[in-house]
């Protein structure tokens, strides 16, 4: 696990880069001279100011002094569970939605995630068949309910 101090230092560098990028982006932004606008109202003014503040805060975070909480590791919980949840969710939302009809995509996601998290290694064939059955049943029931609710009650053209 990464200690908070290291994570803060990395974040500090990211913020400095972001701040510099915003200052540059604001500086080269169209100043609309052709429209004769007041120079104090150029669109890049606030982004430049924010960029400067973000870079300063990034520098302060990078250099922030020692305190007792900074040596603690960041607690991401159970990494295996986290990666499974994030992976299945991203595949559902970014890959399946828009390519597979919504009801099918939702069924696949709910069934896969429920089964994955109720399936127990070494729990025996009966227990895991049960987990699979309830995962599939949950997928069928809730994908149908959500699809019908949004399609017919809220008149949403589903993806």
């Amino acid at each position: 696990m990464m200690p908070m101090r290291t994570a803060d230092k990395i974040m500090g560098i990211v913020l400095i880069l972001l701040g510099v990028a915003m200052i540059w982006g604001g500086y080269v932004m169209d100043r609309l001279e052709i429209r004769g606008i007041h120079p104090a109202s150029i669109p890049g003014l606030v982004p430049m100011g924010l960029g400067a503040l973000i870079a300063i805060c990034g520098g302060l975070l990078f250099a922030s002094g020692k305190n007792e909480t900074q040596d603690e590791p960041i607690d991401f919980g159970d990494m295996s569970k986290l990666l499974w949840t994030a992976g299945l969710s991203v595949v559902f939302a970014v890959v399946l939605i828009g390519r597979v009809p919504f009801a099918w995509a939702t069924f696949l996601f709910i069934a896969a995630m429920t089964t994955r998290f109720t399936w127990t290694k070494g729990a025996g064939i009966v227990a895991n068949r049960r987990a699979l059955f309830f995962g599939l049943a949950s997928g069928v029931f809730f994908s149908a309910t959500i699809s019908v609710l949004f399609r017919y009650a809220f008149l949403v053209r589903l993806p």
Partner: protein
Amino acid sequence: MGVFEQLFLAFGTFTTPIMIFHVAWATLLGIFVGSLPGLTATMGVALLTSLTYGLDRDAAILVLISMYVGAIYGGSRSAILLNIPGTPASAATSLDGYPLARQGKAAYAMGLATAGSALGTILGIILLVAIAPPLAAVALKFGSFEFFWLAVFGIVISGMLTADGNPLKGYIAGLLGLAVAMIGSEGIHAVVRFNMGIPELNGGIGLIPAMVGVFGFAEVLTAMSGSDGVILKAKKDHSRSVPRLADLVKYRLTIIKSGVIGTMVGIIPGVGEDIGAWASYAAARANSKEKEMFGKGSQEGLIAAETGNSAVVPGSLIPAITLAIPGSAPSAVLIAALFIHGIRPGPMIMIEQPEFIFSIAVMLFLATLAILIYGLSLTPLFVAVLRVPNAYLMPIIFSLCVIGPYAISQRLFDVWVMVFFGLVGFVLRKMKFPMPPLVLGIILGALLDKSLRRGLILSDGDLTPFFTRPISAGFAFLVLVVVLAGIPSVKRLIWRLIRNGGTNG
């Protein structure tokens, strides 16, 4: 028309059978959402916004307010039974609620929490009706200079009060929110900024997809990677669920004080219910005759925390309605919902729709009646709901996180925005960056940007009016004080001066 006539009229509008039905289901759903660890009030209101799209204006706002009130109250269920606050707002509740439950007084603890929540909301409603109209009148005097400082003050105070020991992280979260708000077409010359060649970004980042990501997807990730709570199986519970009147009378001063503190915390931009609960709890403990009981099952502590967090709900709606500046994260979503339903919150509200504040007061009151009825009668049902495993619940929640933002705009791009904000929000939260300032930054970015540049146009590029106009100067001073108070060395110096002053005095 007088206050009571306005309230009477609003009461008539919202007590039709269909409106009562909306209050009943939305508050119940809110209590379930709040009671389930991992589902927050903000997530509930954000997801429900997409479901209320097809309802008429009054019904939609009523449903969202009922969800908000129900969810903040519902957090106390799991705080008392599981020692896991259902929402961050109930963290202080678990300190005394859980020990009471361990002593076999779970039902009575839930009854006290219900009474505290109801009384806190009612006190907040009274203050809402009293404060909102004059505040809107004062806000009419605000110009670009004042709105600029108001936006800065909101970000700074929210960053300071919601940061977990390090205000710098709160300020950074606020600045990141402001940076997000810079994406898309700006409000004065309609120049598209930072769209990175993606046409979908020309209109900017939608608040609802960002909020659903930060408070929905990030919560799903947190809940699935953490461990489930265990329902308390302590001593057999023979306690009554209806609190004794004598107890409420005994703690009347605590209730009033907590209600006022909660409402005032609610008025401060972007701070929210958890701070309201902690502030009320700390004040009650400082003045209590039974200090030693706090943290060990103090009824006074439980009432203070619940009254405080519930009073924040009406309090947070005061700046949301009169200044379009949210007092809490759920009220930020409510502002977005108000715009979707054709209501323009801000100083003009008392001129354009003076009845609206009274409608909100009645909506809050009806939702409070609903929590009172549900809270005192449905305890076994709430316990049953708490037994639903995350493995079944979270996939359904995430499916709603996907379809909710899509339903509002019909754009797949908003689903991707939700995923992006969910992943980034999860990492930022784990690194102890608070999320309310980020959300507040996204909301206040346009106001800050337009107000600064309009002010500079009016003053012909001169910064002096930002510091010399009376209200601007007041806000500038407050911002300076808040920033200085967040610097550890300055804080130490102030404490030393106070101690020396006390010793010399």
